[in-house]
């Protein structure tokens, strides 16, 4: 690859808004490109999967584009954001739908009694504040994949890691300095 080559792909499947992730990367000076096909994916050094809309529609889109197996077999650094993290699990109550099945566990609705969606700045177990927007949350079968949590009625899984697959339930693209740090760190993994 030349120096000008995009090193991070932002996976788009037509459902939504990749704009704010793209803008954040460009603000941080991280080269990126929107990718939509298996061929595109093969050209980048790492993948950010923002996810948008509902889980079921997202999975249908991935299936239609033949990306399910491509993602399962992905070996470079992968960062799923919000729905993009949820889709890494076996199944989601939202739909319901089966998901990518990369990380064992399920995705369930937030508990009743909290304002839904969980929207706004919440404190991570790392001590930093991060911006969340979601109505479903991940329940990994093996708690050791959880990298961080946040308190919202109960302890929420706010981040996961399994092999090359990372996930953040919150939005680093809109989480101020905390989010900038996460995106820059991920970019440095993709060199």
């Amino acid at each position: 690859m030349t120096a000008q080559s995009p090193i991070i792909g932002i996976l788009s499947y037509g459902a939504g808004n990749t704009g704010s992730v793209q803008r954040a990367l460009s603000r941080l000076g991280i080269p990126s490109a929107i990718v939509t096909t298996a061929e595109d994916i093969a050209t980048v050094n790492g993948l950010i999967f923002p996810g948008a809309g509902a889980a079921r529609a997202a999975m249908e889109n991935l299936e239609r584009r033949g990306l399910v197996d491509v993602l399962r077999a992905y070996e470079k650094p992968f960062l799923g954001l919000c729905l993009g993290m949820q889709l890494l699990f076996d199944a989601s109550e939202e739909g319901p739908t089966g998901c990518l099945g990369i990380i064992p566990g399920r995705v369930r609705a937030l508990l009743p009694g909290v304002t839904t969606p969980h929207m706004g700045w919440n404190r991570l177990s790392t001590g930093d504040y991060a911006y969340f927007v979601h109505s479903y949350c991940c329940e990994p079968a093996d708690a050791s994949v959880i990298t961080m949590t946040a308190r919202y009625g109960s302890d929420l899984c706010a981040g996961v890691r399994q092999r090359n697959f990372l996930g953040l339930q919150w939005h680093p693209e809109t989480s101020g300095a905390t989010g900038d740090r996460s995106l820059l760190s991920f970019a440095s993994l993709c060199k």
Partner: protein
Amino acid sequence: MQVIPAIDVLDGRIVRLRQGDFARVSRFDADPAALVRTFASAGAARLHLVNLSGARDGSQQASFLSLVRQIARTANVDLQVGGGIRTLRDMSALFEAGANRMVLGTTLFTNPDLVRQAISLFGIDGVVAALDVRDGTVRIEGWREGTGMTLNEALQRVEELGISDVLITDIARDGMGEGPNTDLYRRLCRTFPTLRITASGGIRGPADIRALRDAGCTAAVVGKALIGGEVTLQTLLRAEASDLAIRVIPCLDVADGRTVKGTKFENLRDAGDPADLAERYCAEGADELVFLDITATREERQTTTALVARVAERVNIPFTVGGGIRTIEDARMLLCAGADKVAVNSAAIRRPELLSDMAAQLGSANTVCAIDARKSDGNWTVLIDGGTKDTGRDAVAWAEEAVKRGAGELLVTSFDRDGTGTGFDTTLIARMKARVSVPVIASGGGGTLSSFVEAARAGADALLAASVFHFETFRIRDVKQALATNSFPVRL
């Protein structure tokens, strides 16, 4: 911090006394055992059951024992009982019926030997000391008699007896719903650091629970607010277990590419370049920005995406854009330009399917319904076209429909308060929050720091203002400090 629901029973019925006065009693129809089951399934770990007949008569009636038995059999809670427990036989009967702890008040003072005997027989964990305080001194016999003891002296006695679980009720606040005496608890927790202090009296909602936790209390007993349905136990428990911050949101009203601010949508004054302001607010700790093209609808033109992109390029916090959005393509274009959420107002009233389509295609999380509400006869009607046209539609009913169609957030502006600095319309906010599950941004009227605190107390998830920030009446940080002082979580 444990939240302990309290049920007071008088002659077999659930009641609430105001300030412990048997002459000022409200009766409730619910079945006590069924209510306990409801609390237990909502997540209560402990229940505080008061036998007011017992406190009045100084004995335990068979009917109360059978209620304890029924509760212990049907609900999985740690059950503490109090009221008129005067003998070892009373305690034994209550333990046998299934109670886990005895709440002892009067006996601590009239018969401390009995308390020692009880501890020797039933163990220290079976005893909770209850001190009822009025004007700094401790009252007994259902609050009717004084002990002549100050609260500090009484707490020393509790410590000497070896009891560590202490319930302290401020009689002046009890059943009044005016908020707990947080200062009192803070002082006591500091003076008696080895005691586990439970607060009781006047607790209204999540903010009071957090204030008591900050004061050092380990638990709070909540009666009237739960029984009267003013707040649910689930809400209290969930709020207690949450660090989600109240958002402070500067609003950039834009006309012809400049930030402007007027009164009731008129008399616009120039307030600077939107991109400069956006960057300044971001640096000053804004949690989010709202960017409204207020002339867009009126002049039948679309929001300038170029300006959106320019503003968006300079901030790393979420960003909502509204004004003149009529179609899903308008919304999609703004999201692509860098907006995180899109707010629709007049167009959604004219064609509610717009909200459904946006939610389905762009996601609920990106779909904000902005509602401009004007008060009329105790209700609110929806205004459109920049406040120039009253639709006559009920604003709360419209909010419910908008959420049903998929709006992920509501931006509720009080037309009457907008630009006046006379305080948010807290009644409107509370009404909205009671009817919808999504976050509500309160807007219109934020003029003093205390008005922001009041709106948060009314249940607002986010507080939006323009003039006070544009003209530097105070800073975003000042608002957050005021919220933090009142025990609301903020991102500082």
